[in-house]
């Protein structure tokens, strides 16, 4: 059920840490220990290197595409403690902004929903999470949550702009007053939810279930979904699905998706938010879907070995 359609020759000189498709699915950005960020055109199954961004002085951990309504903007974060925001203008990529406010490796970057403007969350090994908001005119407004996660923050992911709960009690016809929320995972084994109130970021929820570093968190897109859903994965091999049906957003319940035998590195939601891809140290990418009775089932897996195909269950 799963087949390789394209093997991209990235010519990265070291390990690739992240690969992200852009909004339209036509470009692929990769980043690697070799300090570079590369952008490939992946239309029609081909692959053309369109940019090789050099600017980091350490391994680049993660990249993130901004919503195209702001132009072609890519953020990258690195071991060198920097976050670089790149922008394409006239077919060439330039540094738009360089953020150096972290004291340690920056592990994760994630753009907020476009409704909030250009807003970037950055999680770092120094335990802090920074929020960079573009205020126009090359100016970026910085907010920093110190000690968000002790020992370090590994992942950040934004809530969709439309959180169903937040829509309730809004006079109809009026634009709902979005609440900015995101989720983070860290070395303190915690998943934390953050909420902006009166311009200040506050810890909203603390979700405990993992017994080792949380490696990745993913807030599911809310297309048609009635509830908020978050996936988190950890060094302990577990993947949890957190859901909240409560409009006030206070009651989160955890459901164990699966316990893998090895570290789980990534979770990624499909665009419609109903399929979860999980990649772990056990050499597999697995796809999961929630069945009608609320159980998560593996619908297929990709064995990295051959890109081979097998179906479970």
């Amino acid at each position: 059920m799963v087949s390789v359609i394209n093997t991209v020759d990235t010519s990265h000189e070291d390990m690739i840490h992240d690969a992200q498709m852009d909004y339209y699915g036509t470009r692929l950005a990769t980043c690697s220990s070799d300090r570079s960020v590369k952008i490939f055109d992946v239309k029609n199954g081909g692959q053309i290197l369109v940019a090789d961004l050099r600017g980091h002085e350490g391994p680049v951990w993660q990249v993130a595409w901004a919503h195209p309504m702001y132009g072609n903007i890519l953020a990258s974060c690195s071991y060198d403690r920097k976050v670089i925001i790149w922008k394409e203008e006239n077919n060439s990529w330039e540094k738009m902004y360089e953020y150096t406010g972290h004291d340690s490796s920056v592990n994760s970057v994630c753009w907020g929903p476009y409704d909030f403007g250009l807003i970037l969350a950055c999680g770092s090994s120094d335990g802090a999470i920074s929020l960079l908001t573009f205020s126009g005119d090359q100016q970026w407004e910085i907010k920093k949550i110190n000690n968000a996660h002790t020992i370090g923050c590994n992942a950040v992911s934004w809530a969709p702009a439309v959180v169903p709960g937040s829509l309730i009690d809004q006079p109809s016809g009026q634009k709902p007053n979005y609440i900015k929320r995101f989720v983070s995972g860290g070395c303190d084994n915690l998943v934390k939810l953050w909420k902006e109130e009166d311009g200040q970021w506050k810890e909203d929820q603390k979700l405990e279930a993992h017994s080792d570093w949380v490696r990745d968190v993913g807030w599911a897109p809310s297309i048609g979904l009635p509830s908020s859903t978050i996936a988190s994965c950890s060094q302990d091999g577990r993947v949890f699905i957190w859901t909240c049906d409560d409009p006030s957003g206070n009651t989160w319940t955890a459901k164990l998706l699966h316990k893998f035998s090895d570290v789980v590195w990534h979770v990624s939601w499909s665009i419609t938010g109903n399929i979860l891809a999980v990649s772990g140290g056990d050499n597999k990418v697995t796809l999961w879907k929630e069945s009608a009775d609320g159980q998560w089932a593996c619908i297929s897996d990709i064995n990295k070995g051959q890109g081979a195909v097998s179906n479970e269950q």
Partner: protein
Amino acid sequence: MEKMSRVTTALGSSSISGRTMFCHLDAPANAISVCRDATQVVVAGRNIFKIYALEEEQFVEKLNLRVGRKPSLNFSCADVMWHQMEENLLATAATNGAVVTWNLGKPSRNKQEQLFTEHKRTVNKVCFHPTEVYMLLSGSQDGYMKCFDLRKKESVSTFSGQSESVRDVQFSMKDYFTFAASFENGNVQLWDIRRPDRYERMFTAHTGPVFCCDWHPDDRGWLATGGRDKMVKVWDMTTNRAKEIFCVQTIASVARVKWRPERKWHLATCSMMVDHNIYVWDVRRPFIPFATFEEHKDVTTGIVWRHQHDPHFLLSGSKDSTLYQHMFKDASRPVDRANPEGLCFGLFGDLAFAAKESLISGDASRKPYPGGDRRYPIFFFKKPNPTEQFAHVSSALSVFESSVESRHMDWLVKTARLYLLSGKPFAELCDHNAKVAKELNRPQVSTTWTMLRIMFSDPANLSTPGPNHIGKLGTLPLMNSFSMKEMGTGLVAEGRLERSKGESRQDNLHLEPGNSLINSNNDENEETEGSEGQAEYMFGDAELDDDDLYSMEHENHAAEEQEYTLPQEAFPLRHEIMDNPSAPEHLQQDKADSPHASGNEAEVMCLTPIESFSLISISQPLFSPHLPAQFFCPVVREMLIHYAEQGDVQMAVSVLIVLGDRIRKEIDDLTQEHWYTSYIDLLQRLELWNVSNEVIKLSTCSAITCLNQTSTTLHVNCSNCKRPMSNRGWICDRCHQCASVCAVCHHVVKGLFVWCQGCSHGGHLEHVMNWLKSSSHCPAGCGHLCEYT
């Protein structure tokens, strides 16, 4: 916890044990050096010169070499080296240019032995010969290197680098006579100690100063150099020309570099500014440090491996006035934090996945990490542990196509393109969409559309071609039962559903009369929930209908003047249905037109629910006047929510649009708006701009329809002075003329204004159209051959 545990290393007869520990110094350190048996360390700085014993749990101050009330500048050290053969012998490089040797065996408090004051400026480096007891080398800011015989009062030879300041000098491990010197101008020179007149070899190693160099301890002829250009380079000196074999890029300028004992590829570095960490690199993997020590709060100035055959203990001194012993096992490993895999769901359900090449090639020998966490277990072993391997790693990146998701997106795109949402009668829209879904092999969706048509169509709309066909349509009571939750039933239905041929373009859904009673009875008894009263009532109708069908004579009622001739538009006819004559009459009348009704094509639609939870069964004659379309609304609402939850927001929105008022009030505005925004977002991501626009246009949510108005800006230039109109009025504020005057009637145009993009003249649409019928020239008389597109 880990930090508290102790490590003991057996090294032949001696053994080293200890833990990560530190002590405060009185002053910033500039350099440190250990004695041969690794039990003591000397710390030297501008205001400090002390010897500490390395005990298991702590540093213990043994001796303060800085004596006297007002210590001379000779005590102000830039560098220090403990002799590796003579355990009482130390040498320091003083900031005032003096090279001093110290004899710890002296009984007096002042241990100073020899003082050479030959250099004119600060001495940056001193170095004992590894095997020759009395030979000492110094390198100074003044550009000279001097070799001293400690048995003599003066230097035995002076080497002039002919370059700028000397930053480091190091005797080779391999060649007795060779030493390397690094310079501030980026050069590295190799000298033969016997030939002070000229260097043997010189090459440019870095751009900018080369702050340090270190020979590989295993006499390979490898020399590592570090410079201000933030790079560490490894040179193979065995060939005729120095060959760069590795290059590590660090984050800041490199102040010190030290090969790690017993580890061929490892070296430690610290930097001169900005970065306070100590890094251990594997030169084969030059991008990411193998390990880091992050304890120091200020610049690390001196690093030394505690024992020349022990790779686990590293000592460091810093400007933050601390002396540290680092245990290698306590080092942080950036790679542990690093994500070795990249995973991303693409827009079309494709998965981009990057993983280590070894994983991709299916490394069978690879085992899961013990305990599932640390990649590189700590190594207490005398033999190099294979798990300490940190070889160059590369990743392979593949894009996978998962049929599950990509088919979904494929559907979504095709469906979005092909669906008709407006412009035709309701029934036709449903049929069209059902057909689209069917062609895309989505029976469930297709069936849903068909059902919708049946539920919400009224007789008038069914009778598309005209009165003659009425009789063939809906003459039999429709019995169907279907489950909203288990839409899989649609699969069954799809197989049996045949499109009606001939007269009608629509599907006639009949149940075979013989079965219908039984079926409906069963349905009724088993499955109707919550709506029994009504269903019962309907059922009565159905029975009656059947009776009529078979027992009654067909009477031809003159009922042709009914609403069948109404225009075929998708509007709700609920009330008209109510106004209809009673069903039996209808049927009788219909029968007359179609005497062979029972044999009529026999299209069958039989939806057999596989599971019966949440099942709603409907059995009614199509023409039933007693069943308003509202009856279906809760069902449809549930169905839409079900689709949306499944991620098929497209279905929810399409149905919402096609049904329009029929369903709109049933679903709260915010849910609708959420569906709309989600769907529009999706369409825009898929670059289906036209569809997205259509959806926006057809939507009934005010928040959505205004989307189209928010993002359009018109920039208008004044037609007289050709300058941009700055305000919103009709009058150009520069030439004070009315900007939008019709060239034909010379009145101000309010409303539709059409103008030629060539000459910018124009006017009322109607006027201009009329004008162009007679002339192709501009009505303003400018002579332009206007073109309107």
